[in-house]
């Protein structure tokens, strides 16, 4: 069938183009703003409360000093990212309005902390 044939030929090409765009766009992403660090150790965030600049985008580095995988997540500022044991990740956040924003380790939900934007 003609419709199906052309569509199935186009799909992989479209997929490849999509991935290429995403990677290209990613190389353009640069840390031009403030950079902050958060550490997970013994299933605790340090600092448990991190002051961040309000009204501007910033880069947050999350270091996992524990041996097991964690997932840095926040419903308040919509972020979700795996952090392998002994690794660190970077995540771009904001611009946030002034206020308190909760984040947690989704794989150990009792591990919680806050960003305070001011």
């Amino acid at each position, binding site marked *: 069938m003609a419709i199906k044939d052309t569509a*199935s030929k186009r799909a992989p090409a479209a997929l490849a183009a999509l991935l290429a765009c995403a990677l290209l*766009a990613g190389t*353009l992403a*640069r840390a031009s703003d403030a950079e902050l660090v958060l550490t997970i150790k013994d299933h605790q965030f340090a600092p448990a409360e991190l002051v961040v600049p309000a009204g501007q985008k910033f880069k947050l580095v999350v270091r996992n000093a524990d041996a097991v*995988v964690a997932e840095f997540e926040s419903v308040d500022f*919509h972020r*979700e990212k795996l952090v392998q044991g002994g*690794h660190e990740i970077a*995540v771009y956040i904001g611009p946030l309005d002034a206020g308190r924003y909760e984040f947690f380790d989704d794989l150990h939900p009792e591990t919680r902390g806050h960003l305070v934007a001011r």
Partner: protein
Amino acid sequence: MLASLIIVFREVLEASLVIGIVMAASRGVPRRGAWILGGCALGVLGACIVAGFAGEISSLVDGVGQELFNAAILLAAVAMLAWHNIWMSRHGRELAASARRLGKDVIDGTRPLTALALVCGIALLREGSEVVLFLYGIAVSGGASAGSMLLGGLVGCALGLAVGVALYAGLIFIPLRHLFRVTGALILLLAAGMASQAAIYLAAANVLPTLGNRIWDSSALLSETSLPGQLLHILAGYTARPAGIQLVFFVATLVLISAGSWFATRPPRVIAGATPVTGQAPS
């Protein structure tokens, strides 16, 4: 044990609901079981591979590889769902009619099963890699609680699958002539929700602006962490405090797929081969 049960349940639930909808949407297509099972198997295999290279993926492209990877596979799933819906808007009615006329549920059609199988695979790839990493972490850490944690994980996995089966069982109660309209609507919302999640990943990778962090706050009305909130989040991308870019992607996906379906159902103005070519040939 309960902690690992809940974590694995939530991850499996998402993939399980997607597969339930896809199974209902492909009802009556011969060999769909094999296709979808194949897609799922690929997804699980992919999840193990992604879990194995999670550190490497994460550190790609200045540390935002994980976000770009997630956004790319989500958008691929959106494209597959869009393709399915547009295809069905053209052929769904005839398929349902012929099934009714023949008095049987088997539809002899070349439906885009590849698209649906890939959607299942992608759903499992995304959620699965996290489960694999989590359970692997427990297994290697050993200790007295590891056994019960793993057991909790297995129970969570089984419960998550059960919800997907329940959704499917509910959907196939719908008579075939209405079923495709219902699954079409579900897939449209699913696609829009996935697009909105992809938007968040692209914002987290600093590729797209956030366009406002909290356009509204309905968390008092329906919390995203409650079970109904989570179900709505999976099925239609519900976010209690949506970012502007999420709304842009959500609405754009709804509009594009609906427009595509509308164009596909328009009666053709010329019958191919029957009308002579008008105008001048390009020289």
